[in-house]
């Protein structure tokens, strides 16, 4: 199906089903209930899930397959955002030209930076990408203010030409759309106590992510993907087998840069502004965290990692001590205070601490991330059944 093997097609369909029904799946708790704060089915967050999913999928094509650890990928996300906003300002509020330019621009930047950085490998490559990204951040923040909007960021203005749209008609700032569909529009469905929101922007991003995911599967299963894994495994052998690793790695770098640019364009399409902080090195670190947490080198891992981190950032971080006290109110006072005191540092504003601890645990114990964790659990269940001793074979790049 779709030119994929059965296993991959199943995975794709599964991901498609999950994204399509996400407004239901992420809102399992009735509105107004105590658990409603765990609902993640609101457009803003769902958009972030899929957009960062795209970012991480792309990063994984570079890091997961070739093993080259870039610490500057957020720069391409930033380039994509700026390019998209400029398209909104100059040409049209339609998201398609914005996305197109963003992907092209980030691809060009990735080509240039990748060409230079890939002359070194290992930690030197990481430092080079980091240095380039930090330079771009610093420039975007200061000298390039006419292009990037500097500290305030790049925003739409009423005076923008918008050639195709014929300028701004009324006194309101226009919103990004796709041939008349406005990205911010939503439909709501109320089922008893439950409220589900279906947002056009989310579904647009979801479709783009599914396409990006499909492309990633094709790359993983292609000779190109195999070459990339061979680069990670043994460059010397690759050289003596008559292959030149450089163009392969550069292609992977450019492709993953374009994925980042695509993600940046989608961010700008959902909310038409772009700021330099998107390029800061901590943003680059975040996509590393996502990819590792979910499972580096696996297909679905980066998407899971992106989802997990964005969920923590937006949901876990909102739990404050009052809410905690509410949960443990049934306990005797002393015990309640004690438990809240123990848990509190790890949630709410301290969610980064939890993230750091989980991340360390993954690097130490579960190099395959959440995906490997899931596989291990599945295998443990399978092993309980008799007579399947030979099924414990590890399959790469699942």
């Amino acid at each position: 199906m779709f030119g994929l093997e059965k296993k991959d097609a199943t995975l794709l369909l599964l991901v498609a089903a999950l994204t399509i029904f996400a407004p239901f799946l992420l809102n399992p708790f009735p509105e107004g209930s105590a658990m409603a704060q765990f609902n993640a089915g609101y457009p803003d967050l769902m958009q972030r899930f899929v957009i960062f999913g795209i970012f991480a999928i792309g990063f994984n094509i570079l890091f997961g397959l070739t093993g080259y650890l870039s610490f500057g990928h957020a720069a391409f996300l930033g380039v994509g955002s700026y390019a998209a906003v400029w398209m909104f300002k100059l040409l049209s509020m339609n998201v398609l030209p914005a996305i197109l330019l963003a992907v092209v621009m980030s691809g060009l930047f990735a080509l240039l930076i990748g060409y230079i950085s890939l002359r070194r490998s290992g930690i030197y490559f990481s430092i080079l990408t980091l240095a380039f990204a930090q330079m771009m951040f610093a420039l975007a923040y200061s000298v390039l203010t006419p292009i990037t909007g500097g500290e305030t960021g790049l925003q739409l203005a009423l005076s923008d030409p918008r050639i195709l749209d014929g300028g701004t008609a009324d006194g309101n700032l226009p919103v990004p759309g796709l041939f008349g569909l406005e990205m911010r529009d939503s439909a709501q469905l109320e089922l008893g106590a439950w409220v589900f929101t279906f947002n056009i922007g989310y579904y647009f991003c979801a479709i783009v992510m599914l396409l990006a995911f499909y492309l990633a599967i094709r790359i993983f299963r292609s000779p190109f993907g195999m070459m990339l894994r061979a680069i990670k495994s043994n460059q010397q052998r690759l050289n003596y087998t008559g292959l030149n690793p450089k163009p392969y790695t550069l292609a992977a770098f450019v492709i993953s840069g374009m994925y980042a640019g695509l993600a940046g364009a989608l961010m700008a399409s959902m909310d038409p502004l772009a700021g330099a902080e998107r390029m800061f090195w901590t943003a680059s670190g975040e996509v590393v965290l996502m990819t590792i947490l979910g499972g580096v080198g696996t297909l679905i891992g980066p998407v899971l990692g992106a989802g997990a981190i964005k969920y923590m950032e937006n949901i876990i971080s909102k739990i404050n001590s009052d809410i905690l006290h509410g949960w443990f109110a049934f306990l005797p006072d002393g015990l309640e205070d004690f438990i809240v005191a123990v848990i509190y540092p790890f949630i709410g504003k301290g969610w980064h601490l939890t993230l750091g601890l989980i991340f360390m645990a993954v690097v130490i114990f579960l190099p395959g991330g959440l995906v490997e964790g899931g596989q291990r659990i599945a295998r443990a269940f399978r092993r309980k059944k008799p007579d399947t001793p030979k099924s414990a074979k590890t399959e790469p790049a699942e």
Partner: protein
Amino acid sequence: MGILEVKDVGKRFGGLKALSDVNLSVKENSCHAIIGPNGAGKSTLLNCLVGKLIPDTGSVMFDGQSVLGRSPHEINQMGISRVFQTPEIFADLTVFENMMIPLFAKRDGAYRLHAYESVSNERALIEEAERMLDDVNMLDKRHMHSASMSRGDKRRLEMAMCLVQNPKLLLLDEPTAGMARADTNNTIDLLKEIKAKRDITIAIIEHDMHVVFSLADRITVLAQGTPLVEDAPENIKGHPKVQEAYLGETH
């Protein structure tokens, strides 16, 4: 005129003269062994042939073309495959994938961005890979992670990866180093079979005289960076200069 012509090659590392005035001619479809005591420059010479090192002086011609200044992958594309002293394979990949990569390199050249096609659709190459695996009795291991194989299997896999490219010249760097006697004999048999079946030139660097005299049609003895003698195996055995080189080395 041999398929590989090494003329007046010299190489220095700082003050150390690793190779000087090396002349060597390897005839097509022969098996040429290069032997010599430790530090004689055998590995340096090999590295000059495959593009890892560039000699300071002299020329290296393969099949009528100079290899000097070309990178290892270009030299491989000219038809030279190399087996390393410790097996160099793609340890994170399966045996089958290890076989596919040289086949792609042979068909598509040093680089081709085929990112949208699926490996599993490459019927012809897959068959070729499986045929080769069958030849080296590894077909049953094709889904194995190659890192988890024994050293002997890794060596056989590496050999198969080189052979599947149908190279004109196969360079072997101590292919039996650290092997048990039985494995060594298997390797000898495998190489004999390859010689019999294919039009292939083999150049072999080896310590083990048993291997050398079982396989070689011609032997060059290297000592202190210079060829001492080049002759047929039967003439090498009792050659006084050779004994001097080896005995002089080991007191």
